[in-house]
């Protein structure tokens, strides 16, 4: 528990510092930057009604309220190509005037990290405004003989089945995690979402699964209470120095690193872990990010960051955000920059290692 309180205190302090920094930088700039009477297009490379769309539509009115000049912020959906189409469009056409912003998700980061040939965008070009972290919890069926998180070691050598959305989707994170732990998991692909996967678990077709935090709280906790699911570990969160720590939403559950240690007897390290860590960061702590296009002037970036910082203080925002965004704090400033770097940079060797593994073991070809 000390770990958690330490984390929160440090987190709060950092947020304060970052906020103050953003404000002090942003204040003089705000006088110059004004979007009065303008319409800002928030490009979402997914169709309406999905997670990213809901996230953007929730944030849009608050952003509109706190951006200088109170511009209209509209969400424009450009779905297709697993989000590469709309993102390519943004990379090719958005002008650095602050009137077009992009919301990305793990499914935008992953093809980029894997070197998908459809990707014609470069994360390093962009300026980050905000990052929205999320978390998730892996759980198993009591039929495996595991009665609590501490008994995770019993999974070793058992035949486990996982319902996956595809080896290059967000489910790449559990795939890499289970592999590293040395668990024998059969990944059954073709599921349309984590919800469908949970249904397969409830039907008894699979015996290991994970859900993102809010779905876990609402839909898996009742199973845990009924004794038909056993939580194993959370993916964990990142502190300001980029270290893996327990997820503040699930302080009593070990994070992946601890669980790994329980199974293998040593702390995770090495190139395999580095590859996992890049995808984990892109999929969870930096899952959703807001970007301004290449060459955007610093004062516009500052105005946006200041808007996000004030938006987070809005009582309306605080009152309703938990239902939509979960219990995680929206990240701006230096911390967002750190997440963005960690979640979008991978060394060519590590990329090759993951791509080769996917090709050899799961027949994944990245669309050539």
């Amino acid at each position, binding site marked *: 528990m000390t770990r958690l309180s330490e984390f929160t205190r440090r987190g709060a302090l950092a947020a304060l510092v970052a906020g103050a920094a953003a404000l002090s930088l942003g204040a003089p700039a705000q006088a110059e930057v004004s979007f009065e009477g303008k319409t800002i*297009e928030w490009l979402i490379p997914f*169709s*309406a*009604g*999905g997670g990213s*769309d*809901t996230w953007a*539509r*929730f944030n849009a*009115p608050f952003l509109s309220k706190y951006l200088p000049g109170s511009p209209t912020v*509209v*969400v*424009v959906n*450009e*779905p*297709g*190509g*697993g989000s590469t*189409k709309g993102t390519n469009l943004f990379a090719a056409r958005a002008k650095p005037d602050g009137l077009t912003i992009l919301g990305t998700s793990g499914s935008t980061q992953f093809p980029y990290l894997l070197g998908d040939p*459809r990707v014609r965008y470069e994360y390093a070009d962009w300026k980050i405004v905000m990052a929205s972290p999320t978390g998730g919890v892996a759980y198993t069926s009591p039929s495996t003989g595991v009665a609590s998180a501490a008994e995770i070691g019993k999974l070793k050598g058992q035949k486990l*089945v996982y319902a996956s959305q*595809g*080896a*290059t989707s967000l489910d790449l994170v559990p795939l890499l995690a289970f592999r590293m732990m040395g668990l024998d998991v*059969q990944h*059954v*692909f*073709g599921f*349309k*979402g984590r*919800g*469908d996967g*949970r*249904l*397969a678990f*409830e*039907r008894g*077709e*699979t015996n290991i699964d994970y859900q993102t935090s*809010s*779905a876990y709280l*609402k*839909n898996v906790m*009742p199973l845990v209470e009924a004794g038909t699911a056993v939580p194993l570990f959370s993916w964990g969160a990142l502190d300001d120095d980029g270290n893996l720590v327990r997820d503040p939403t699930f302080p009593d559950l070990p994070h992946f690193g601890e669980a790994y240690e329980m199974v293998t007897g040593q702390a995770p390290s090495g190139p395999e872990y580095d590859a996992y860590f890049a995808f984990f960061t892109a999929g969870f702590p930096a899952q959703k990010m807001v970007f301004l296009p290449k060459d955007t002037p610093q004062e516009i970036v500052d105005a946006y960051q200041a808007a996000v910082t004030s938006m987070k203080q809005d009582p309306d925002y605080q009152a*309703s955000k938990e*239902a*939509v965004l979960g219990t995680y704090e929206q990240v701006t400033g230096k911390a967002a920059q750190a997440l963005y770097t960690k979640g979008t940079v991978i060394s060519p060797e590590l990329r090759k290692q993951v791509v080769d593994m996917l090709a050899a073991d*799961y*027949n*994944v*070809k990245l*669309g050539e």
Partner: protein
Amino acid sequence: MLETLAAAFAALMTAEHLGYMLLGVSVGLVVGVIPGLGGIAGLSLLVPFLYGMDPISALGMLIGLVAVIPTSDTFASVLMGIPGSSASQATVLDGFPLAKSGQAARALSAAFISSLFGGVVGALILTGFVLIARPLILMFGSAELFMLALFGLSMVAVLAGRSLPKGLAACAVGLLIGAIGGAPATGEFRMIFNTEYLYDGIPLVIVGLGLFAVPEISDLLRRNSAIAQGTVIGSGWLRGVRDWWRNVFLSVRCAGIGCMIGSIPGLGGSVVDWIAYGHAVQTTKKDPQFGKGDIRGVIAPESANNAMQGGALLPTMLFGIPGSGSMAVFLGGMVLIGIEPGPSMVGPDLNVTYSIIWSLALANIMGAGICIALAQPISRLTAVPFPLLAPCMIALICFAAFQATRDLADLVALLALGLVGILMKRFGWPRPALLIGYVLSPQAETYFYQALQFNGWDFLLRPGVIIIGLMTLASVWFGLRNRVDDTGTTQGAAASRASRGVQILFAVAMLGFFAVALWDTAQHSFLGAVFPIGVGVVGAVFAAILLVHLWRGHADHPAFYDYEIVGDHAGDDDTGWFWTGPAWIAGLVAATALVGFYVSMIVFFVAFLRLRARAGWGTTLAMTAGAAGFVLGLAWMLSLNFPYGLLQQAYDLPWPFR
């Protein structure tokens, strides 16, 4: 329990709640009338209102929106032959022939009263069913879902038309089109031919519009008459209500089917109308006129599709898994309001659940009531000379088509599938068989693979699988007995033999498609290739059988069919060039590639009205301005950009020309 019911009812009946619901219903009706727009567009219109509303009113508004879309989309299906949304595709089959014979008001009122009834029956079933639904829904594993997909495919037996090999080959084409894009088991991309658009597969709305709307528009364009040939019977609406009452048991059964299929997550709502239609055909003994304007062919799908929305609420609320496209939107809306679906919806939040279910019934009553009142005046549209209506319809289907991915490629795909649809119509290939194959293709493949992974071949021994298997066999048996022929007179075979050459050519082209699909599988792994190989081989076999029939069949073999010879327009001097319709659409698509959609549409209107409709400048300008304003207003409200062309790539233009 009773207290919960009473509390839910009281919350529902406040003026505020009813007012918001009416707002949702109105938006839903408008959005439903315009083909291609559905719940997703409606949601983006309503979202700005959601903040600060109390959850019950907000839910009422959302429910009002999604509940009535399958009601008002009937207008386009019946009056213009344009499937308004995936839920109204089967309605086109008999609704449009009724409109063509001047009975649009009758067809519409029968459709609306069926929608109303279906929606209310669906809500009644749900009131009890919601309490026991969780364990029942969990009984449907991948194996059972695969069998349900097969059951859906068995409807092809009903809709295969006169020549069974043609029908099965058409279904195989559909299955292969549905397999374009990422393979469920491995994610490898099939039949994409290095085209980025094909990575995601061809969207349903494009397939529906291409197969059904484009051939009808092109057909009508060649004659200069109105949609309704002969006089329009304006006051048919009482007759429609009587028609429905005479078939009330069919309506009840189809509502039940719709509700059940909607409540099983994973099958998807887009086959419900076909299953209901197939059911109507299978169970009708007295004087079936299906495909030529049988009112039962309207009542069945319309009763089912509104009930389906109710059923689809169950997986949405209980598991957070959207049971249909508009439910995905509803789910997004629920999260925005702050209601997270889950088991608590039948526990502490049961009152919310009930207010949702009954809002659904109320919204259906409101929506159908408004539609019935509008049916009579709107059905007069069918008396407007078609050349004046045509540019609006072409612009409308193009607008609908590019809602799919908002790309020029949508329009190109529409044109390509439109050509396939036109030729299929001409040569008597059953388009519904293709559509069913297309819709069920991903389900059939995914669930088969998953069932094998989870259970091995033992999955065939599961009781649910055996039961659904027997139902499928029965469905095939009844289907083959009562096959629907939507290709007109049966005497035409002998006369159709005259154009044997082109019919063989088209069959060879289809065979060529199977060959391409099989060739494509060579570069894929076993799991990615096995489904297209299986379908491709079966399709090729039936196409080959058809070729034998066409080559050597006796003079009046049912395989012969050419609408150009046996259609009622044949021999009429007024009939225009066969390729008129596709040529105009191709012109619009080509212009879009050059100067973007919005400019092209304006030019297209002026050109069409002046050159084709020979309208005066006054009419031309008024209609062009009206259409341009309408589309602009829609695009502005939905904050969308039009497909862009070379011009926009070279120059940065202001919206809407961007």
